[in-house]
């Protein structure tokens, strides 16, 4: 069991957790993730580590409610526990002095880009951060990112905060202004990462994206998270999660992420019908525990 020491909403549906996980905190590097499971009948989901504190033995994650598992997770609070947390998994981000780096975060992807941005700044890079969100309420980690960025730009889809538009608009401006860009790191929804990749491909700017395929074990054992990189299968859990954006087949990523949509909807509907009882029982580690008795599982 991994104890939640602190939990707070950063924005509607986006929650940050501080979790006691000394081994992981000791080893984590920017770009790595954990896989967690909430209760005995739960699935395993990967979540990027936003920050770790080796001295306190804690890690921080930021979670956006999307399906049943993330909704259940975001219903937990300080004092609750997570049944399983394993990591740090995946290759760490490449951190060195590139020159000028543009770090782009879309939605909750901002939380995943943040630790890498901080490390890149520390490594002597000029860091220009671009954060995008649907609206004002959903802009997260502005203060944190500002601290590690030489410049910070923010866009909202509806213009309720900062500039109306998309993160790619800002990137285009930078390119058109003749800003020398040595590396782009883009983490966010697949359409955003794909759009960034298309834009930088023409400009021959090296671009890194962090991919989020469906995963189970996270150790390279199952191959479920395979992504097509230059037409060849690679495993996001051990060969990634970060890849050269210009080599990624985004269409296949979208296609593979849709594989269980019907089932995911079914789980989500069930969650919405029985939110209270499910939240209650996730705290005891068992959902539908009564139904499980006696079948030897």
């Amino acid at each position: 069991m991994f104890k939640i020491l602190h939990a707070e909403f950063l924005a509607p549906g986006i929650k940050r957790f501080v979790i006691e996980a000394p081994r992981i905190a000791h080893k984590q590097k920017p770009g790595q993730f954990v896989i967690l499971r909430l209760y005995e009948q739960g699935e395993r989901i990967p979540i990027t580590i936003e920050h770790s504190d080796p001295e306190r033995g804690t890690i921080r994650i930021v979670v956006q409610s999307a399906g049943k598992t993330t909704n259940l997770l975001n219903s937990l609070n300080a004092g609750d526990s997570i049944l399983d947390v394993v990591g740090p998994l995946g290759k760490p981000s490449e951190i060195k002095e590139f020159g000028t780096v543009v770090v782009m975060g879309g939605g909750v992807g901002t939380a995943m880009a943040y630790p890498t941005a901080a490390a890149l700044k520390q490594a002597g890079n000029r860091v220009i951060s671009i954060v995008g969100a649907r609206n004002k309420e959903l802009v997260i980690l502005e203060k944190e990112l500002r601290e590690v960025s030489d410049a910070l730009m923010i866009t909202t889809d509806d213009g309720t905060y900062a500039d109306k538009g998309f993160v790619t608009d800002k990137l285009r401006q930078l390119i058109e202004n003749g800003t020398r860009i040595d590396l782009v790191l883009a983490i966010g929804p697949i359409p955003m990462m794909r759009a960034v990749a298309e834009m930088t491909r023409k400009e021959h700017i090296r671009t890194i994206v962090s991919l989020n395929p469906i995963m189970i074990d996270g150790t390279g054992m199952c191959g479920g998270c395979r992504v097509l990189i230059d037409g060849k299968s690679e495993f996001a859990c051990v060969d990634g999660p970060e890849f050269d954006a210009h080599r990624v087949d985004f269409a296949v990523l979208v296609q593979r992420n849709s594989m269980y949509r019907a089932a995911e909807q079914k789980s989500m509907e069930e969650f919405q019908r029985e939110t209270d009882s499910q939240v209650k029982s996730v705290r005891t580690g068992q959902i539908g525990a009564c139904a499980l008795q006696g079948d030897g599982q």
Partner: protein
Amino acid sequence: MTEPTKQPPKQASLNPLSLKERMKLPHQHMPEQSPLERATNFTEVNLGYSEELARQEAQRCLECPKATCTIDCPVGVKVKEFVQLIVAGDFMGAAAKIREDNVLPAITGRVCPQEDHCEGGCLMGKKVAPLGIGYLERFVADYEQGHLDISKLPKAPPTGKKVAIVGSGPSGLTAAGDLVQQGHQVHVFEALHTPGGVLVYGIPEFRLPKQIIREQIDYMRAMGVEFETNVVVGRTVTINELLEEEGYDAVFIGTGAGAPQFMGIPGEHFNGVYSANEFLTRINLMHAYEFPKYDEPMVDFRGKNVAVIGGGNTALDAIRSARRLGAGKAFILYRRSEAEMPARIEEVKHAKQEGIEFQVLAAPLEFLDDGKGWLAGARCQRMELGEPDASGRRRPIPIEGSEYEIPLAVAVIAIGTTANPIVQTTTPGLATTKKGYIQADETTQKTSRKGVFAGGDIVTGAATVILAMGAGRRAAKSIHEYLTTSGEW
């Protein structure tokens, strides 16, 4: 093992029957769920011997002076001795006898390829059916489970030495069990959330119920073995850190043959194409067959065609799982003939009874989709057999112009595994083979790193549960020696 004598120790035998009478006794078949019934559930196929059946079968043992059953067993179970204790009705004595050499009898009694080991050389088998050693072992182990109070297990005096076991599969569990009985402090690290390794994620419920694995693990806990799940050694902690910072005196690496092999043919990324590891992990570890009670889903292929490519036990586990999930037509696609299939005989028999088809001498060349990224079929090619290859099996040779297409909703690739590199690449000085497996001495299981031992699939490549257990056993012996002597390397 005692020196073979020329005649069976007649006076010492607990079996009143003459050898001739024993030869005439019929082999007792394993009671099992009917094929029609079991093809729709995940409950264990074999139901187990009753005490009566077990004693009848045990009476067939000829008590050969030269016990090939024990010689051919990778962990050296004293078959003759435990079988005689069954004859005498001392089932707990029989269990204790097995446990002298095998810490996982309820598991090996179910999944061992007995035909390749203990039962393979059984003299009875030359004339009639071999003694049902696996069935007897299973009976004894299950009897013990129902009658033993594990809180009263004797504990060896502590040696003060600490051993880390990396991986809780068959080799790791065996090493752990042997070492804890010597008084060493044993800590097992498991990457997944449940201990058991391939026994949990790889072998389906209908062949090896999870409850059995849990009981064996509980038994080991009662012996004093500590388990820590959610630790990926190489990522969460390294071998160096275990030795240098966490105070372990020795480490055993039994991480298994972790990475799935794909075929490298077009279309392997389509939705509906799985590695056997993923397909089985979803079903076994994550209980996808119980969706929505469990959250992990599986593609719905009820009534549709499912093919598994490969001919080993894993392939059969996958296709029989697909049958239970409601596949319309479920078939094995294997490039050689049935004679070359590495699967256990019993699995092939069970699969056929359950309506699994075997399309042999054929292999897919390409997967085809429905235009939207979902698997719709495969283009296959027929094969003929040529000369034996390096594996000793006849090599499949493609027949020109024999291509044909089949409709498919799900394809599972079960053609083997490769070495998972996580431990090797994070352990400086650990020598590996060209294929990335860990180099270890065949007798001592010592690696190139002092204090580090390895065994099982991560050394040999994919093999069987019992062979991995054999390696775990050799490693435990060698680790004990290392810890109790000057520790030379």
